[in-house]
Structure formats: C-alpha cells, structure tokens
C-alpha cells in the first residue's frame, strides 16, 4: 500500500481522496449544526420581534449602522483572503498561503476591535441584556429584549470569530512548518469552510439587527 508514501494518510483510509471526502462531509455536517444553533436564536428573534415590533424598532436605533457596515466589509474581505489562502494551498504557493492566512487573522482582529468599540458604547449607555438594562428615556417598553438578542447573537458570533482565529492560527503554524501540498490541504480547506459560515451568519445578522424597518 501507499501508506508509507503519504504520511498524512490515517491508517483506516485507503486513499487520500477518501480521507479528504470524509473530512469534508464531517465539516459540512458540523456547519449544519452551527446553522441550527444560530437558527434557534433567529427563530426566537423573529417571534419576539413580531410580538414587540415597536420596541425592536426603537431599540435598534441605538446601533451604529456605520460600524455595522464597516464590520460587514471587513468580514467579507476576510472571507476573500481565506478563500485565497485555500487557493494558495491548492496551488502550493506557500508564501502566499501564509500571507493570506495572516491577513484573515488581521481582519478578524479588526472585526473584534470594532465589536469591542460597539459593546463598550452600549455598556456605557446602559444598553445591556435582560435585567441589567438601564437605559434612560425609553418611550416604548420592552427594548431590553432587543438587546438580549443583540448580545446573545453577536456574542455567540463573536465567540465563533475567536474560535476561527484559533483555528486559522493552527493552520498557519502548520503552513509555516510546510505540512501542506496540492495533495494534502484538507485542514486549510475545512477551516476555510468554517470561516465562510461565520461570515454567512453575519450576512444575516447585519440587516436583521442594524437595518430593521
């Protein structure tokens, strides 16, 4: 068998393609669980928004659309650099792979930085989730619930960004070590898939939270 020739091949697979396909199926299944995890929050948001449309409308005005827009651009760009990293790995451009991975991490950092600015602004104004909400001068009751969802959804998303940074850093280390070739780049590919999903979730979060009408 060719096992010895391909050190990355685990003992229970016979071909590299089989192993890569299995990895891909596993990753997509995992992404589906992520969709449904966030999905629960989306469903809750939709129903609560339906019950309290006026409160949600008023509350969302406290969000900064410009920052939300910038963050969307940042995250879309990071998706681009990530897919370019995958492309570089496929084509054995190790230098470019490293650069693109670094860029992706940098974008992720910028995203979290902006999120931090937004959060501290909200904290300052008393726009906190649930019982900690103490913003003065509300005209419509129930605005706290919007912020319950805002913090849960963006918080969970932020945790995923953090997880993504860790995963990309791990891939980066392996890339520097020279683990990848056009025959074996599954880790880059899979982390890329994860990263794009985090992007897709933000694509929905942005209009739902920042652009309600």
């Amino acid at each position, binding site marked *: 068998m060719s096992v010895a020739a391909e050190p990355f091949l685990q*003992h*229970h*697979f016979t071909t590299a393609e089989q192993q890569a396909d299995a990895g891909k199926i*596993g990753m997509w299944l995992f992404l*589906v669980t992520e969709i449904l*995890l966030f999905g629960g929050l989306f469903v809750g948001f939709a129903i609560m928004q339906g019950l309290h449309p006026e409160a949600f409308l008023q509350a969302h005005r406290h969000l900064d659309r410009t920052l939300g827009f910038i963050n969307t651009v940042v995250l879309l760009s990071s998706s681009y650099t990530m897919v370019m990293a995958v492309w570089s790995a496929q084509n054995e451009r190790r230098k470019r792979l490293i650069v693109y991975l670094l860029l992706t991490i940098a974008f992720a950092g910028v995203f979290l930085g902006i999120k931090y600015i937004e959060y501290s602004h909200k904290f300052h104004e008393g726009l906190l989730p649930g019982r900690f909400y103490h913003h003065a001068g509300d005209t419509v009751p129930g605005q706290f*619930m919007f912020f*319950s969802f805002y913090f849960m959804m963006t918080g969970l998303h932020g945790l995923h960004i953090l997880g993504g940074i860790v995963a990309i850093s791990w891939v980066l280390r392996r890339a520097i070590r020279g683990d990848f070739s056009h025959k074996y780049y599954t880790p880059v590919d899979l982390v890329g898939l994860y990263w794009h999903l985090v992007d897709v979730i933000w694509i929905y979060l942005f209009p739902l939270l920042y652009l309600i009408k």
Partner: protein
Amino acid sequence: MEPNYLSTPRGLKSWLTTVDHKRIGVMYLASILFAFFLGGVFAILIRIELLTPGRTIMSAETYNRVFTLHGAIMIFLFIIPSIPASLGNFVLPLMLGAKDVAFPRLNLASYYIYVAGALLAVGAMVTGGVDTGWTFYTPYSTTTNSSVGLMTLAAFVLGFSSIFTGINFIATIHKLRAPGMSWFKMPLFAWGIYATAIIQVLATPVLGITLLLILMERVFSIGIFNPQLGGDPILFQHFFWFYSHPAVYIMILPGMAIISEVIPVFSRKTIFGYKAIAYSSIAIAAVSFLVWGHHMFVSGQSQLANAIFSFLTFLVAIPSGVKVFNWIATMYKGSISLEAPMLYAISFLLLFAIGGLTGLFLGALAVDVHLHDTYFVVAHFHFVMMGGTVMAFLAGLHYWWPKMFGRTYSEKWARVAAALIFVGFNVTFLSQFVLGSRGMPRRYYNYLDQFQPLHVFSTVGSWILALGFFIMAGYLWVSLRKPCDAPANPWGAVGLEWQTGSPPPEHNFEHVPLVTHGPYDYSQPVSEPEEVQA
C-alpha cells in the same frame, strides 16, 4: 490465544487514550450501563414512594427531584447514547468492513465530552438536585431555585457528544464501506444508525440553543420565555420539542435497527422487504421533524397548528407499521430458534406493537386532550422506550456479547432473566395505561385512594423487573470472568462482523473483506465458522 483488541495494547493508559472504536464502544457500554443502573434506582424509589398516597418514604420535594433525575439520567445519559454510542460504535465499522470510524479521535473526544456531561449532571444532583422534570418547562424552570443551571449545562454538553457521534457515523457510512458494499448491500443496522445520525446532527443543536436560552433567562432575565417581560412561555415548548420529539426517534431507530439484524439471524432467513425497511428508517427520520407539536395539544398552541401536527403525527405510524409487518414476514417459513437475543426481539415486537398502537390514542386530538399528561402517556412512553429500545438494546447486547468479549454467557439464566423482564415490564406498565385512562395525572406525589391498588400492582412489577436485571448482571459478570470461549460466529450469521475473530483483532480484519452478497443471504448454507476464521 491470538492477540485481540481487548488484550493488546495493555494497560489502563492504552484504554483511556485509545482511538479504537471497539474500545470506545466498550467504555461507552460500561458508562451507559452505570447510568442505566442509577436511573433504575431512581425508578424503584419512585415506585416505592407511590405505594401509598401521600408520604411513603420521602417528601414531595424529594420525590420531584427523584422523578426528574430518573428522567434526565435515563434520557440524556442512558437511552440516547445507548445503542449508537456503545453497540453502534463497536459493530458499525465491523459491519461495514471498515478498520475504524471516519474520525477516531473525534470519537474519543465525544466519549470524554459524554463523561464531562455526566459529571456535570452528578454535580447538579449533589448541589440540591433538579425539580423541573426532564422537560425543563418554563417559567417553572427559570424560577425554581434548584440546580437547573448545572443540569441544563450537563444536557448541553451531552448534546455535543451526541452530535459528534452522529457526524462520525454519517461520514463513516458514506466513505468507509468495504469494497463492493453498495448502499443496498449495507446491513439494515447501518441504515438505522444512519437515519439516527441524521436526526442527531439536525435536531440536537436546537436543544443546545434552547438550554442556553434557559441559562440566559436564569442569569440575565432575557425575557424570551418570561410572560411578565413580554415573552412567550409556550415558545419554549416549541424549542424543546423540536429537539425532543425527533430525539425519541434517536432512541427508537437504533432499536429497530437491531431488530432488523436479530430476526433474520435467528429465523435463518433473508430479511423480508429490505428496501422498505431501509427507506422507512429514513422516512421516520424525515417525518420526525414535522410532528413535535403533538406534545402541545393542550398547551395553548393554536388550533390550526394542533390540526396540522395531529395529521402529520399519524404519518409516522405508516413506516413504523411497515417495519413490524416486514419483521413478522421475515419469520414466515424461517428456521426459528429462541435464544436470548431472539427472545428479546420477540418481546420487542409485542411491546412495541402496544407502544405504537397506543400512540394512535395520543395522536387523535380529542382523545389526547383527555389522556395528555396522565399515566397513559407515561405507560405509552415506557412501552416504546423500554419495551422498544431497551428490549432491542438487550437483544443486541446478547447478540453481540460473544463478539465483543469473546465469551459466551449462560443461555439458561439469560432466558430466565428475559422472561422475568418481560413479565415485570408488563405488570409495571400495563396497569399504568388504566391509571392514566381513569385520570391519574403524571408527576403526582399524592393521589386519590381509588388508584392505590393499581399503583401497588405497578410497584410489584418494578420489583420483578429489578430481579430480572440483577440476574442478568450476574450471568454477564460470570461470563466476563471466564476465559475466552466464544467461536467467531456462534449464531451462524452472515454479517461481516462475524467473519472476523471473537473478540476481533485490533484492526478488525486480517484482510479487507470484499462484499459480493447481500447482507442477509441465508438461502445458501451458512459458511462454517472454522472456514472464515483465518
């Protein structure tokens, strides 16, 4: 003796760090059996308390914790991982002719996640217990001061263990079948596990977010389920049952999968309607996502939703019925021998028939309104879960026991235990159908005097059940203490898992098997074990 997965490599560390699906399966088996024991102890306590109305041996607060823990442990720690994670882990790769599951390290991780979840559950038990019932209904669960936080965290963690097992199995079935094993040459057990894994992956995340929302509600008062803050407590039930109804099929589908294996072997006959059984598993998985609202017929859910959910619920009856008829047809003109696995399989057929048929009562709106939240539901649920899944689990355990441990057990005692369990089960739960029909609500500590005779009857049944399980524990323990004596293929089965040693070698097969026959080809004389034992 030839080296096998049990003997090499040696040492505790080699077990704790193993990525061998067989060892992980065995570790799961030990863990879930312990959970089953624990849950069983709580069950016996419940039954003793219900011997008399009012206080028998414990206070109402204690009783509420005991039935909650019985439910939570049995559901989250025993029955959901029971068949897939223990027996499935062990035999699925063998049946497919694979050396391992697709992601062996993930497999080990999901075991440790399970252990972590179990420890959290124990944490909840010792820090005051939980008194919400395993269903965690809001606003009770968000206002009670028992350890709901820890228990929801435990269930959350256990959910991830379940998800990872599901992901692993789907990838394994897709990519690791032996050469020649097309989808329709796959054993039906694999089909059942596949359908189960689909539900595990698609439904469990919603449980995760639901439990997280309860935690958030308790910590932050986020308001979503709190009517005083403008939330909707009924919405919680949607969230909960969106997972927990499909979860019932996570529990029963693997049971059905085992029955599809055991009946052909012990009837020595080709399975009847292979494709119908395979497709019905997938159909059940698909429909399982469309029926959760039948838990909410009296919850204040809209009448329109009630009608739609009621209708869809009845559709589940069809694939379930199809399976039962196919199994019975498999026995027709067979060569039936009644060894312990077959006894449990037949128990399954009879008890699951009752469990399934009483489901019709609960799907029919007008009748369900009366029976909902009574002992009728308790009895129905136990007929499906214990009469169904647990019987199937026991069938599988006895069927694969020689394969897993290379040892035979006392057939005589196994039959005695099977008989006791069957009788005890019926005494315990048939009476509960009558109790519920007459208006005995569930989760009642105190009850009207008129119900006492039936409660006593039921409690006595639980003791018979317990005796059956003690005997089983005894002869299985004795079996483990003796040297390996099981032949490679004691039942004359044709499945791939029987074409290797008992217990199997570390990497399952000496040579990668090539599949040319269907999985239930019993019309040919069964090849003798000596020939295949390479």
